[in-house]
């Protein structure tokens, strides 16, 4: 996120030192040693802009893209998905397993910025930037993703919906690094979807983003489980718990989906800004929740034959 430009007007970086660790341990040591004076560099699509704007002025920039563990995509039906936090979006949607088993997260990765941005931006970076408008976060929330964080004191798993604490802020302590996402294997008859509203057709930050995942029962007429995540309608990305519960165990119908949409609107606490008014965002939250849930349901219904 960019605050008002530096006196020179968004141009030059202050002097920085560049480090390129090869392992998680090395990275953690560097981050712990320099604390506030170090910042991880992944795709750079947020950090470099912030460095230019003078919003952040760390002395050390720690490039984590050369750490194998953070660049891998490992999927099995048995163990689910381990998605390295530094995998660029383009590698996500080029990956057949991602497209097949996690289409919602994949389409979120394909929506961020432009193809140029997607060559560099990562899901981990998207989350750690702490913007409530991050596109991939609602999709991660919908999938029940857990964040594996490694720090000088050891490791912990953080549910993705708890990761961001305020605009631009996360649970990461000094020296901690988000290494990968752990996402459960998709159940039979389940799928996910992500939709966002932007004024143009590309390039914009989401005015509202909704990620939904649904699991249907064997009859395809009932939702056994659902999770809904929201972007850009609160100080952090939101797990719309009540909206999700409003779907779980229910027959699929317009009324069911409408109830969920109303709960989603209630879960949102948007602000007025130049991307949209609070009133507009609330309205769009309802519209997108209906559309995203419908899409996830349609996908879930068609996946049982294709998997």
């Amino acid at each position, binding site marked *: 996120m960019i605050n008002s430009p530096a006196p020179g007007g968004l141009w030059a970086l202050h002097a920085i030192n560049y480090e390129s660790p090869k392992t998680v341990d090395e990275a953690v040591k560097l981050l712990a040693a320099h604390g506030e004076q170090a910042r991880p560099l992944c795709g750079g699509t947020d950090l470099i802009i912030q460095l230019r704007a003078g919003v952040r002025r760390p002395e050390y*920039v720690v490039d984590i893209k050369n750490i194998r563990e953070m660049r891998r995509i490992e999927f099995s039906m048995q163990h689910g998905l381990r998605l390295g936090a530094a995998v660029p979006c383009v590698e996500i949607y080029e990956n057949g397993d991602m497209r097949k088993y996690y289409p919602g997260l994949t389409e979120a990765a394909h929506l961020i910025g432009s193809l140029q*941005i997607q060559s560099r931006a990562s899901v981990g970076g998207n989350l750690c930037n702490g913007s409530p408008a991050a596109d991939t976060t609602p999709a991660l929330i919908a999938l029940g993703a857990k964040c594996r964080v490694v720090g000088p004191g050891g490791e912990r798993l953080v549910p993705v919906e708890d990761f961001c604490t305020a605009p631009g802020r996360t649970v990461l302590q000094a020296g901690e690094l988000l290494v990968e996402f752990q996402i459960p294997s998709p159940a039979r008859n389940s799928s996910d979807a992500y939709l966002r509203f932007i004024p143009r057709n590309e390039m914009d930050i989401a005015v509202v983003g909704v990620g939904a995942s649904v699991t249907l029962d064997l009859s395809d007429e009932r939702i056994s489980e659902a999770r809904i995540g929201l972007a850009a309608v609160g100080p952090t990305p939101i797990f719309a718990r009540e909206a999700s519960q409003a779907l779980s165990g229910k027959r699929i119908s317009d009324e069911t989906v409408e109830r969920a949409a109303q709960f989603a609107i209630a879960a949102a606490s948007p602000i007025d800004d130049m991307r949209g008014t609070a009133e507009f965002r609330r309205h769009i939250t309802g519209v997108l929740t209906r559309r995203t849930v419908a899409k996830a349901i349609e996908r879930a219904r068609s996946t049982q034959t294709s998997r």
Partner: protein
Amino acid sequence: MAKKVVVEATINGEQTEFLCEPRQSLLEALRDVLELTGSKEGCLTGDCGACTVIVDGRPLCSCLMLSVEAQGKTIQTIEGLAQPEGLHVLQQKFLEHASLQCGICTPGFLMSAKALLDHNPKPTEGEIRYALAGNLCRCTGYDKIVRAVADAAQTLASGTRKGSAGRLGSGPSASEQTEQFLQEQEVK
């Protein structure tokens, strides 16, 4: 004064070594250190694509990459698109279709278009537009750019290289081109 580092990369097919400060972006290194001024600065926030280069086969905004990150990478800039034998088909088609007016966005578009055709040799109009959505043009309204990329894709797919730059002559009018184009693509 910050300490400079040596970066080694393959740029437009040549092993290259250059000195830069870590705080310089790849765009600065290209323009100010290597004097490759073909890539342009338009916004410094990754929103206009004028600085687009291809790194390890991927198009990206060189303003959002640090110069030191280029270490060991293979980079292609606009200066490397043409060969001694002649212009790349994309460049030819841009000229034939008059796809540039002021030309400042053209290097970025050509790099994005090349990256597109390298990955997807038969893009639809929609796929072309999606792939180029990260490149802003304020002069053309994109019409002749999209036509040129589609034409280049066809030409490359059919294996012919039609003519060279500088060839004179009339072409079909815009309306004729539209009709033909719409027939070949799906009309929205």
